[in-house]
């Protein structure tokens, strides 16, 4: 993995067509500007994981009614 340091206002190129510019770094957050062809999909990484988690949620392995047992157990513990 390539690791680079960039200051505010500096940029980097990925291939010939994608340019990432650091606009600002404040309070632990980097604000980025990305110039890329329309055909390139740009997603926050967590969005992909969120979609995958939803797909898992849509495809349950046992009846959700079995969760009632887990919930009741918790209640008893309290």
């Amino acid at each position, binding site marked *: 993995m390539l690791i680079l340091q960039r200051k505010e206002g500096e940029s980097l190129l990925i291939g010939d067509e994608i340019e990432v510019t650091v606009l600002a770094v404040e309070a632990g957050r980097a604000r980025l500007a990305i110039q890329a062809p329309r055909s390139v999909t740009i997603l*926050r990484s*967590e*969005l992909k*994981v*969120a*979609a*995958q*988690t*939803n*797909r*898992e*949620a*849509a495809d*349950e*392995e*046992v*009846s*959700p*009614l*079995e*969760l*009632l*047992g*887990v*919930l009741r*157990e*918790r209640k008893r*513990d*309290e």
Partner: protein
Amino acid sequence: MRLSTKYFGEIDCPEEEKLCFSEGLFGFEEEKEFFLLPFEGGEGSLLCFQSAATPQLAFVAMNPFSLMPDYAPVLTPGELKAMEVERSEELCFYALCVVRNPVGESTVNLRCPVAVNDRTGRAMQVILGEGGYHMHHLLSDFGRKEEATC
């Protein structure tokens, strides 16, 4: 309206209880309308989001506050505006659940709750940036944590 559901067969659902997800759910962007249906015996803590368009699509959901009483989801100003409220506290929140076999290995997604505006029927799934919540909290961990603090 008459609705074919994944878990409850054919049921009647009042049209006005339909929830509108203008952006769908992550990975299910084309699914814009759901009904929130409770499982009998769940005392309001175990429900599902049933797609209005796709009978076989339903997401099991839990009341996150019953799992974690100090759960504090905070939406961004843009998300609050889309939900037509001023404060996150005006919304209801539900956490989607991945039901595993064995059931004790099931997980809940506290990082991406579904926020619902009860007043307008608007709903959206968000990704929380703050709070340190994860997408796969083991359901069986919640009981244990509480025991540890007792």
